[in-house]
């Protein structure tokens, strides 16, 4: 699985279905087919730009590495294992593992100063006047965290892999590369936390079957409880879970704020019945939710229908 997919675990915290999906290493192409998800993919123009920039940036890497990490090195050297010493290496298609999950990035660029190894990441989104899109940087940081954690698992001495990474981006509207240091230590810790929970997922036996596909795969996944929320649109199961949430009328379909306010009250019909006093709340928690929503309902009634509040 590529780092982006594993990093996706951090987007949907607490969703057991998403965890099961990754713990069972379901093939996303098969899954998209099964649930009839719209085709994703990258524009050919984005791919070309990616390629051009990666080519240009790789040529100037020694200079950037020297400036930001203080490492004197020549052009990158191909390697097929975790390097030692000082220099700059490209490791193509490394077979790494993170806990039990395979991690298969296309390539990893590493710079070493003799004591520490620093991952180098080349991305083609622009850094404008010193600002890069924070959402994209955050996404890259999560993916780098997966790489760092996987390298640490492969390294004889894990501390030798630094969480400080060099991120190389094109400057302004051109393709001149600029480097910047990005410390992904917090993301590595969050990833560890997520993976601990992933280990605890007891996978339904059916999901362990190899070559599972089509409706069988969907129903096996549907058996695992999902937690719908604001991070869901980036998940491969999104369209399926969304349909689920719509047919059951769950509060979470309206977003995290609604789900948080309604707490144990699961469906919108139930919550609205509490708000309109058509249902007696059971327990203190429901009473508090009912009070809060009843107040909102009264205010809304006053504002829309001229109903008086007292």
């Amino acid at each position, binding site marked *: 699985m590529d780092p982006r997919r594993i990093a996706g675990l951090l987007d949907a915290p607490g969703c057991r279905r998403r965890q099961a999906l990754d713990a069972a290493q379901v093939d996303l192409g098969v899954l998209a087919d099964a649930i009839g998800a719209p085709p994703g993919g990258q*524009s050919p123009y984005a791919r070309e730009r*990616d390629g051009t920039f990666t080519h240009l940036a790789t040529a100037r890497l020694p200079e950037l590495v020297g400036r930001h990490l203080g490492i004197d090195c020549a052009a990158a050297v191909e390697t097929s294992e975790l390097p030692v010493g000082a220099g700059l290496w490209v490791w193509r298609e490394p077979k790494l593992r993170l806990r039990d999950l395979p991690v298969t990035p296309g390539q990893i660029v590493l710079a070493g100063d003799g004591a520490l190894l620093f991952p180098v990441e080349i991305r083609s989104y622009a*850094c404008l006047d010193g600002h*890069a899109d924070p959402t994209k940087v955050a996404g890259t940081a999560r993916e780098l965290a997966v790489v760092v954690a996987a390298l640490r698992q492969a390294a004889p001495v894990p501390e030798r892999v630094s969480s400080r990474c060099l991120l190389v981006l094109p400057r302004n509207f051109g393709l001149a590369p600029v480097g910047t240091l990005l410390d992904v230590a917090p993301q590595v810790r969050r990833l560890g936390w997520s993976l601990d929970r992933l280990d605890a997922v007891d996978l339904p036996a059916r999901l362990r079957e190899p070559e599972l596909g089509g409706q069988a795969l969907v129903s096996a996944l549907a058996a695992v409880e999902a937690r719908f929320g604001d991070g869901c649109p980036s998940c491969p199961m999104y369209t399926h879970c969304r349909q689920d949430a719509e047919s059951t009328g769950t509060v979470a379909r*309206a977003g995290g704020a*609604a789900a948080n306010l309604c707490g144990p009250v699961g469906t919108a019909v139930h919550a609205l019945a509490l708000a309109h006093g058509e249902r007696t709340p059971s327990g203190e928690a429901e009473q508090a939710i009912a009070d809060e929503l009843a107040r909102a309902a009264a205010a*809304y009634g006053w504002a829309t229908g001229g109903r*008086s509040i*007292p």
Partner: protein
Amino acid sequence: MSLDVYQRLLALSRARAVPAASRAHRHLSPRPWLLTGYHLAGEPSAPVAIRYGSFRDSPKLLTVAEPRDRALRFAALGGLARDLATYLSRYTVTEPVVRATGSGRELDVDHCCVDAPQLVVPNEATAHWVGLLGQYLRTLDDPVLAAAGAHLGWIASRRHLPGSNVLLTATDLLTAHWRTGQLPTEDGHLGRLLAWIEPPAGVDAWQAARDAEAMPPAGPASDPSWDQVVLRPALERAKHQGDVRRLKLAAAEVLDGAWRDTWAAIDLVRMLPPGEHVAKRWESDRWSWTRHRERVLAGTVSFSARLSDVPAYRFLHELETRTAALDRQMALDDPLVMARYLATGEAVAGVVIKRDPEHTVVNSGGRSVLRPLLWVRTGSAFDRPAGTELWWGKVGMVVRGSTDDTVELMVTSGAVTRPKLGLLPDADAEVVLAPFGPQQYFPDNLPDELPWPTRSSRPKPAPEPELDDDLDTDLTLPAQQTGTAADPDTAPGRVPVPRAVPDPAAESRGAQ
């Protein structure tokens, strides 16, 4: 806010958006300039097609046969720049305005443009792109393109100011006035939003929203498979055979949806009666436009990438002032917005059950002064403490105490002299007491020490070669905060710093 959640739940169970406002809170120009378009994937400076103009039925379409060819790109953008200049030239008429200057005692005559331009785009991403295009054009030597860049820069800079209406996004227009039952992130999709507000006959919002997703995206990023299947052959043909018809047809087809949806959003908001304070907020935009024009004419337009120290302090101050003013104005204009404050308990609605207009207290000077008392019966307990200030129009009062269904209030301003006692609410009158008094003015005097967010405390980066002089301080922030939760997407206290900010002094003069 619990009212937001309640409205979302209502919308969800009805499968239809519910109104979140009963007044239009955005100024809508009678002749806005709309812009929708696509750029080449990953390259905001390489537009593929842009549809723009002020006329719904006759938009202009700009296409670039080879977006990566700078000469072709500049030629196409030159057309856009000239059309923008023509549109802006309609807003040069000024009128004399008498304003107080200095300490407020002297009067002066100033000139303000009678109207200002307004740009409307389908979504936030396109609004951001407008800013990027402006930034890109400003780097060019061509005077026409650079002038367009300056104008786009001013337009984009207004986007960050609460209450400004120079650059509107259709998604913001709709989310400000309606609430849907889908995820807030899904509200960023213009087609989905419209499907919730006006689903086609016989289709519920869920289905209509799914249908809307299948339409071409509103931009500025195009559908990757469209890039592959339609755009690439069309561009090849345009490039090698000089035949742009296919490109124009393809572009017109995909941009048509966003174009119509943006107009539809404007139409929907136009049906609402405008809020009272909207014209006042637009006046601030008109002043800003006037000042921007003056700077353009004087050749002193400048944009800074990042603010620090005093400009940053002033900008933050302006943001705070505007946010407070916008909240207050919207609530006073619109009962549906005021309902949010009723739902949270910050405002209180009820019936005056008893009055004591003759009540007096002894003030600190030892004089007895009139401070009438009111008792208001409320639907639910008012749980704010004694001393809380509430307002009924211009009459200010403080809470003396409250029980399960009654609030006791003492009037402290607005009706504390005998001639003005008639301004008090009558017994049995229904009142809404709001936490919003007269417009608040916050002095923008500089404090002795600037607050930390505006200080340029970040260490200066090591000297860099000329090309790479502006390394990203934002990106290195987590590195400086090792050990704390410094995930860049959740880092606290991050203040969005605009790419360009007009002179704050000029803004605040026209602000309220």
